[in-house]
């Protein structure tokens, strides 16, 4: 009897759950389903941007096909693999740097000092400037001849001659990463700061009394406690970094040295008007991100998805 009552209660709860989910799912379905499904469908056709209607089904030819003993398609295109390598480098390096730097900034902001409120607002400024604008601004600051970065480094005697930050293939990707770090570190810093402020004071008191070195305290007490916050930050930063587009596009255009998967997909889709191949490139990017996300989520399963189940 009690079990039955519990069952019906559970059923009612589940009904409520779906009822409450319905508006969000409905809106998301309307907004996302058609555009995403369309991309998937187009990726299997030879559609051009101008006449998506008159497209012919070509199976997986946009992805990979062998004709007369030669492989064609995106997966046979060295440029795609170059873009994949650039994108992965960009995503891993920038997210890693943002986490380290963001934590450092958060630690500083967590200390008590005057103007802390102002400082916290200042931290957010890079993140609030429209990307298109800040990317162009950095491109100007990094200009090899009249950029302020070279000027500053020359004055300080750190470099002997102006560097071509965005033109030199060895420097360009790193320059773009540096700008991305500038732009999105605040996001990470804020999340970590919030985590730091939640930490119980007593741990620290105990540590101080015991005379443990602050660095040790950080690694053995603080870091494990702020781990969940870091993970949330990392997931969303990683998703964004893998899809990076406007920053790269504005700063270095379509140059090979910084070509990312999104820039590559856009070039095929918009510049070349090849809706079929461009959609395929987008789907491949989706697949890459999805695979990495699944791996990432599985690795941290306990902390992100089904905890307390």
């Amino acid at each position, binding site marked *: 009897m009690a079990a039955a009552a519990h069952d019906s209660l559970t059923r009612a709860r589940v009904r409520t759950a779906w009822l409450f989910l319905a508006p969000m799912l409905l809106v998301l379905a309307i907004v996302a389903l058609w*555009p995403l499904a369309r991309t998937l469908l187009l990726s299997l056709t030879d559609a051009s941007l101008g006449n998506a209607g008159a497209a012919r089904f070509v199976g997986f030819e946009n992805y990979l096909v062998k004709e007369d003993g030669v492989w064609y398609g995106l997966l046979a295109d060295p440029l795609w693999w170059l873009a994949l390598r650039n994108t992965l480098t960009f995503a891993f390096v920038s997210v890693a740097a943002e986490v380290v730097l963001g934590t450092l900034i958060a630690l*500083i902001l967590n200390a008590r000092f005057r103007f802390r409120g102002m*400082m916290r607002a200042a931290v*957010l400024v*890079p993140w609030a400037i429209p990307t298109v604008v800040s990317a162009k601004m950095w491109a100007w600051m990094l200009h090899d001849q009249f950029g302020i970065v070279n000027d500053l480094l020359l004055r300080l005697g750190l470099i002997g001659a102006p560097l071509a930050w965005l033109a030199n293939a060895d420097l360009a990707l790193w320059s773009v990463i540096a700008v991305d770090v500038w732009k999105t570190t605040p996001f990470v810093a804020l999340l970590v700061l919030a985590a730091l402020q939640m930490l119980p004071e007593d741990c620290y008191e105990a540590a101080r009394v015991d005379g443990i070195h602050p660095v040790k305290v950080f690694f053995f007490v603080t870091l494990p406690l702020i781990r969940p916050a870091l993970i949330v930050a990392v997931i969303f930063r990683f998703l964004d970094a893998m899809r990076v587009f406007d920053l790269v596009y504005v700063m270095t255009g379509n140059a090979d040295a910084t070509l990312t998967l999104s820039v590559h997909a856009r070039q095929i889709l918009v510049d070349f008007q090849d809706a079929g191949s461009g959609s395929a490139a987008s789907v491949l990017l989706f697949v890459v991100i999805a695979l990495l996300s699944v791996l990432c989520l599985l690795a941290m399963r306990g902390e992100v998805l089904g905890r307390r189940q």
Partner: protein
Amino acid sequence: MMALARAVAFRLLVAALLAYLLFPFYYAVITSMKGGSAIFSVDYWPSQIDFSNYARIFSEQPFALNMLNSVLVAFAVVALSLLLGLTAAFSLGRIRFRGRNALLFAVLAVSMFPQVAVLSGMFELVRAFGLYNSLLSLVFSYMIFTLPFTVWVLTSFMRELPHEIEEAAIMDGAGPWTLVVRIFLPLLWPAMVTTGLLAFIVAWNEFLFALTFILSNEQRTVPVAIALITGGSEFELPWGGIMAASVTVTLPLIVLVLVFQRRLVAGLTAGAVKG
């Protein structure tokens, strides 16, 4: 002596940090007061104080109207995503049912496609609903960016709240809607502010959709208005004007952050951390 040295070192660190974060913005401000050839010279201090670039962006196009449009769109996006996100987060965070994780992942998957791939399909949708050249098209299409994020963050916040909270209320016979509005909303308020601000910045800065779905100057939003600032000829980049516009656009966001910064930090604290 040691303490003094440490204090000085700390101040220096803070100053270095501030310089790193704010210098580009400072540079934008001084550039916005320059004109013509001056943009090609390196200056560390404002060489001239001249607000004509600011005057020009407001006189040459309906920039004030564009800002109003941006504000309207951003607030509508925030309100809608928070409402939808909150109810969804209640289900996903507080009720156990099958397929919950799959659903969460599906929601996340929506934000794994590059924006440019979604553009054409979204354009067709916007036209099909008759929203072309209307601000509603932006509110509608921005859901694809803000909903996944809002749902995820609010769900994780929701999950952290202890079970006892709702049990007492359920005993008192409170329905689910009452539960969400009366019990969870006040507790989640700081979290709402956080996610709301994030959604706001996304909507405020978005460019591609805003360019494609809106055709008349009076309906445009700010990032597109900035892209429409041109020089006297095809290739000339009116750098001073663009910087003036960017500074103008960033200021409201800074004010917003200053106003909400206490709540913002508190909001992030509530959910993402404990457990």
